[in-house]
Every structure is written in structure tokens, then in C-alpha cells.
């Protein structure tokens, strides 16, 4: 019981992000004419996937006390590469996907090497490599376009039941537990769960992953404790690259094309930082995690979704003006972050504010 309370207190940021997302998403669905339907859920999951991946990618360097300004460009790079490679026979598809994910991983590894061995500050190192990644993307895809395997794109961006419709898993017709149960779950949600189970949780529970937390908390103490600092940092940037690559691949599946869109890359990077903060990860490192960033990204997306469904004749009609949306998004983001900072008012010893 006491342990539970301790754990809840230690995960306050995450809980706040979950609560905020729940409120916003319930509001959205109750205002939406087709609210609480599979179609809406599929659409929302598709639109959130890339930002979630990029935010989770951003979390890892931030945990070590660093930052990665190239997560958006790495996503763009993977997106453009996918529009070239993910096509043809099933064998070619698998090879293409592997190469796309490898490109993200390699880009992250390069970032890590520059930060660890070049001893260059992460913010400036990744600003530079980000520009390089966007440059490569432009080279691969000078104008938006390309082709993605349509079956693959269709099944990965819809509810699981479309897998059955496309690949005929159940020749005798889908059983009820599938058609009315798991078949309704959007594939992107399953993919996110897969990423958490296969990448994030093992990383968090590995010695290397915990080294990232240790470094962010106190790099000197981590060194004196014999933590392998270089290895942990390198892993953080590399796994970050992999996650950004997954985001880019999905963006290609979702849009059916590649686009070396520089403003989009920048917007994803900045939103990923916002999502990390809303999700309860400290920008100084040491506390938080990718699950928080997932919900942080969902909060950001849910804010944007809500603006679509305000009735222009209703009491909140002025909110439906698209020109006002950026202002309100900014204000709501500020409020969301302020909620996390509210603890300051309860602090009785001002010294604890600074440590």
C-alpha cells in the first residue's frame, strides 16, 4: 500500500498526461458526430502514430540529459527511403522495411558517436546532423511522390479485421471473437504495443538503459559507480534513431508516398520535445520514460483533434476558426505543462525547488 503510493507519487507526470488525454479525448468523441466508432479510432491512431514514435525517440536522449534535434529529420529520411524501397515482391518488401529501419538506426548511431566520441554538445551535434539527414532525404525524393505497396499500406493503417479481408486468414469466415473483438482494434495501436514490448521495456530494464537514467540523474556519480557512460549514451541515440525510423516508415505507409518536407521535420522535432515534457520526463534527464511521452504525444494530438469538432454555431463556436487554432494550441500546451509545475506551490522548503 505504502509502496503503491510511492510509485504513484514517482509517476505523477505520467498520470497527469494520461488524465489530460482521457479528458480531451472523451470531449472530442462526445462532440464528434461519429464519436466512439472504430473508424474515428483508426483515423486518430493513424494520425498520431508518427508523432508518438518520434516522441518516444526523443525521450531516450533527453533521459541522459541530452536532446536530439534530428528526430524529425531522421523520420523524414526513413519516410523518403521507404517511398523508394518498400515495393515489389514480399521478399523485397521485407528487405525494404529492414533497410529503412536500419537507416534510422544508423542515423541515430551517427548522432551517438558524435556526442560520445566527438564530445560535442547534443543540441548542436544533432542540429547539424539533422540538416544532413534532410539533405539526404531531398536527394532521395526531390519532389513528393514515390510508391508504397498498397496492400501493406492498407492493412497497417486500418483495423485488424482488414488483415483478414486482405489475406483471408479465416477461410470459413471470421469467428465472433475476432470480428467483434480484437478485429476492431486498429493495427497502429497494436504496432505501438509491439514497439513498447519489444524495444522500450527491454531497453528500460537493461543495464544499458538504466545507465541512461543514471547519467541523466548525475553523470559524475554514474561514472564513479562504474556505469559505462559511452555505451549507454550511444544506445540512447541509436535506439532513438530506430524509433524515429519506425515513425518515418509508418508515415510512408499512411500517406502512400515520401516527402522531404523540411518544415514538417522541424515541427515533428519541436512537438516531440513538447510531448516529452507533457509526458513527465525532465529535460534535465534522469526521470520519466517513453510511456509518458506516448501520452504526451496523444495529448498534443487530442488538442488538435478537438479543434476539428467544435460546432461553429455552438457556445464554443469561436474555437472552430482555424486561424485561432495555433494560439489555443499554444495556450493549452502551456496550461498542460503548468499543471505539472503546480507542485511548486506546495513546497515549504524553497531549497528543494532547485535540487
Amino acid at each position, binding site marked *: 500500500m*505504502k*509502496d503503491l503510493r*510511492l*510509485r504513484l507519487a*514517482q509517476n505523477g507526470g505520467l498520470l497527469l498526461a494520461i488524465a489530460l488525454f482521457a479528458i480531451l479525448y472523451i470531449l472530442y468523441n462526445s462532440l464528434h458526430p461519429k464519436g466512439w466508432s472504430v473508424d474515428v479510432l483508426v483515423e486518430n491512431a493513424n494520425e498520431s502514430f508518427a508523432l508518438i514514435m518520434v516522441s518516444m525517440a526523443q525521450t531516450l536522449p533527453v533521459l541522459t540529459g541530452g536532446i536530439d534535434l534530428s528526430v524529425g529529420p531522421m523520420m523524414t529520411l526513413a519516410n523518403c527511403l521507404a517511398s523508394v524501397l518498400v515495393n515489389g515482391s514480399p521478399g523485397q518488401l521485407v528487405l525494404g522495411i529492414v533497410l529503412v529501419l536500419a537507416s534510422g538506426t544508423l542515423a541515430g548511431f551517427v548522432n551517438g558517436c558524435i556526442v560520445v566520441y566527438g564530445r560535442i554538445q547534443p543540441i548542436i551535434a544533432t542540429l547539424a546532423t539533422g540538416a544532413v539527414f534532410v539533405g539526404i532525404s531531398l536527394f532521395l525524393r526531390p519532389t513528393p511522390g514515390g510508391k508504397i505497396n498498397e496492400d501493406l499500406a492498407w492493412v497497417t493503417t486500418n483495423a485488424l479485421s482488414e488483415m483478414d479481408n486482405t489475406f483471408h486468414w479465416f477461410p470459413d469466415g471470421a469467428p465472433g471473437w475476432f470480428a467483434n473483438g480484437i478485429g476492431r482494434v486498429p493495427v497502429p495501436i497494436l504496432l505501438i504495443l509491439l514497439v513498447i514490448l519489444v524495444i522500450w521495456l*527491454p531497453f528500460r*530494464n*537493461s*543495464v544499458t538503459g*538504466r545507465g541512461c*537514467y*543514471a547519467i*541523466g*540523474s*548525475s553523470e*559524475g*556519480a*554514474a*561514472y*564513479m*559507480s*562504474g*556505469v*559505462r557512460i559511452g555505451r549507454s549514451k550511444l544506445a540512447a541515440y541509436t535506439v532513438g534513431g530506430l524509433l524515429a525510423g519506425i515513425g518515418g516508415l509508418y508515415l510512408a505507409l499512411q500517406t502512400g508516398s515520401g516527402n522531404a518536407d523540411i518544415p514538417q521535420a522541424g515541427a515533428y522535432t519541436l512537438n516531440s520535445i513538447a510531448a516529452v515534457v507533457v509526458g513527465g520526463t*525532465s529535460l534535465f*534527464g*534522469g*526521470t520519466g520514460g517513453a510511456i509518458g511521452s506516448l501520452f504526451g504525444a496523444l495529448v498534443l494530438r487530442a488538442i488538435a483533434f478537438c479543434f476539428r469538432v467544435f460546432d461553429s454555431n455552438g457556445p464554443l463556436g469561436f474555437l472552430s476558426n482555424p486561424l485561432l487554432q495555433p494560439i489555443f494550441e499554444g495556450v493549452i500546451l502551456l496550461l498542460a505543462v503548468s499543471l505539472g509545475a503546480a507542485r511548486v506551490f506546495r*513546497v*515549504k*522548503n*524553497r*531549497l528543494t525547488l532547485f*535540487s
Partner: protein
Amino acid sequence: MPDQDTPFLALANVSKRYGGVRALANVNFTCRRGSIHAVLGENGAGKSTLIKVIAGVVQPDEGTIALDGRPATFPNPLAANAAGIVCIFQELSLMPDLSVADNIGITTPPRRFGLIDRRAQRRRAEELLARVGCEDINPLAHVRQLPLSRRQMVEIAKALGRNPRLLILDEATSALTAGDVRKVYAILHALRDSGLCLLYISHRMHEIEELADTCSVFRNGQHVDTFPKGARSDQDIVQMMIGREWKNVYPPKPQRSAPPPAALELRNIGWEGRLSGISLQVGRGEIVGLGGLDGQGQRELLLALFGVLRGVEGEVIVNGKRRRIASPAQAKRPDVGIALIPEDRKTEGLMLPMSIADNISVAALGSMTHGLVVDRTLEDKRTAEMVAKLNIKIGQLGDAVATLSGGNQQKVVIAKWLLTGASIVLLNDPTRGIDVGTKQEIYQLLRDLADAGTAVLLYSTDYDELIGCCDRVLIMYDGRVVRELAGADITEANIVASSLNISLERTEAQA
């Protein structure tokens, strides 16, 4: 095969330079198994460098290290760890945002399928905490949430969890409570009896008296002598350390017929249930000590007076006027004139990367301006005066304060506050981890300040210091002042008795 007579660790002709400073010069040093070996010396004598060389934190410029009779090199702390060399450092090597269990198992956690087994890790942390007698610490709690004294026990548990063959303790008991010190002593004795080699660094003579069986003295980077405990008197040892005649450590106290006029008066100070009903006076020219067991509200009282705490009840009267002090910035204003020398000089006392001059002048900058611009000439003059007055050993005023030794850093903190011209000086354990020579200078400085009319309120965990320095000592227990000792009543027996005495507490409650 190494036999029992081979020293476990042997350093031969080890030298280390930092820039122009010679930290270690041709040091030959050995230590045996089954021994607690005390290393003594002033700050800057080379003790820290010696340990860093052994622990793989720095590489020696010359010389060789042999472990178990075989030559060894430690390129980093990890390699030294692997060889069984474990350090407990004065600056704690804990990661504040990680849980106690994570900290204890940081490098070699129990694993299952290649991943950290959290349950096993927690059990192991519980066992180790129980071994050091700290069952009260929840392994899930973040280290940040623990007070300093508990953190140090976690640090000790963490070190024990690494199965050391050579355990180095660098001022490892400086923040412990009296009860924990007992437990740690018992553990250290048991480790020695099981054949471990322990290197023990402390500035507290009575600790060395109680623990060590062998002592080595360092001075100016050189190994002066090694001898069995008891072979030399305290006087001799201190003389060896400071290389000059040992005088009385504490300056004489003035004889007063009447109590001096009060500079600071507190009436019924209370805060959050941690402080309650504290009323006291500190007279002009008086040094008043705060004593008692660690963590009875002494630190909080000083922080409350300095405007750090929110929601403090009661009245603070400075020079006859009631004041509301809501922040350190208000406390240091000339009409209030309170200064606080904080507990942790690295985080609360100094801006480590900034220069010595910037650190000294930062609190008093407001009084050294022409309009909006700082008068650099005046600033340089004032800081140079302070460096000379406090005899701070520095290279250049522009050097980063982080390059100074602990004692000199503490002097910089004191210089900073003296420069504000404070008439009331609060000190929170100012001599923790500082060498005898510097301690002596600080005691003299406090007495000089008092003689010049400053009111001094000194919290110290070292009873000797309270006895030697203070005109009066107030003993705190559970957030209240339970006893006041003055004159000849200030004895160790009285302090210890009133710190613990339950009957005293009862009479207080009835009254």
C-alpha cells in the same frame, strides 16, 4: 601465490601533477589485509589524489601499483571495481533520481533473461540495507527524497554489495547520525576481521582512535610516516600533519559579567511540525551553538531564519525590530544583515565553474555598483582584501573555484558572506570534511567576528567544536530547544546527556 605477508596493495614511487601543483610526490605506500588503515593529512596533502589513483579515477604520472603482489593498472573506476577496489566517497556517488534499489545494484544488478530482475534487485537491496541496520529505508524511494545522513548509509550499503576486497572510505561518516556511526563501526570491524583491507580517511581524531589499527600521515603530497595506532600521541600526529607547532585549537572565550544586548531574538518559532515553540536570543559578540542529535530541526531553524522556508510562525526580532524575512535576498539586506554559511558548499555555497572573485563578490555586488554597472576596480579590491584576510590559498582570483581544495572553498563561502557586512552570521556545520589547520583558522575567525560585535549562531555535528567555540549551547530535540548550557556546563557529558535524555523531554512537556 601471494602469502599473508605480501601487502594487499603496494604503491611504489607514485607521482601525480595537476598543472603546476604536485599532488603526489614519489609516494611509497602499502596496506595489509585484515587492517583498518587510517590516512591522515590536511586538505591538499594528497589524500584525495592517493585515493583517486587507487580507484582508477586519475592515472599516476609515474610509479607502479601492485595488487596482491601483481602489478596492476586501473584506467577507469570500472577496472578498479572489477579488481575488488570499492570507494565510498565524500561527494556521494549516488544518482538522486534513481531508487535506492537501483542505486545499490547500479553496475551489477541481478538479471533474468538478460534484463534486470527488479524483484531480486529489491530483495538484495533490502538485505544490504538490513546489514547496515537501515531497514527503515524503502528500497523503492528515490535517493533525492532521503536526508543526507540516510543517503550516506545507502552509499555504504551500495559499496558492501560489490563484495569489496579493498574498501576505501573517504569522510564516509561525516554526515551520519550518532546511532548510524555505531552500526558502521561494527560493520567495519567485522569486515576487517574477515580479512578485508580498509583505507579510512577522516578528519575526526576520535574516529581514528576508535577504528584504525594503522595510521599513515601525508603532507604536501608526500608520505610522511606510517605507524601502528597508539605509537604517537595526538599532539605528535597533528604536528606531523600541519608541519608546525600545535597550538590550542580553540581561541579563548571572553569572560562576561552580564549577558550582551540581543542582536537576534526569536519568539515561538514553528514550522510544519518540524520546529515548534523555539525562543532564543543571540547577543552581540556572542557565539551560540546549536547541538543535539542530527536531524532534530537545527538545519531547518537556520533555513527558517534565512527566509528559505515557507509558512514559518513566530517572531524574528533583529536589533530590537521585528522583521519578516521571506527570502535570502531580504535576509542579507543591510538593515537585517543575516548571512548563512550553508551545509553543502558544492550546491548551496558556491557556483563551482565561476571564478573565485565572482564567487566572493556575488552576494555583495549590490553595494559595489555605479548606477547599473558593477565597479570592477572596487570589486577586485574588495575580493583581494577578503582573500588576504581569510588567508585563502589561491593561484589567481580568476581561477574557477572548483580548482580549490575543500577547506579553501569553504573559506571562499565565508568570505562571500563577510563581504556583505552581515551582523548576524548563521553557520550550518561549516567544518564538515575540512582539515585541522583550516578548522583552526575558521574558529579564530568566528571569535574575531564575535569580538567585533557580530552575533554568531553555529550548528555543528562535532561536539568538540561546540564545547571549544561556543559561549552558550542550545540542545535541540524533536524541533524544540530542550536545554541551554553555558560556561563550565558545556561538557561532552552534558551535551550527550541532554541530546538523549528522555526525562528532560518529559519535564519540558509538563512545563
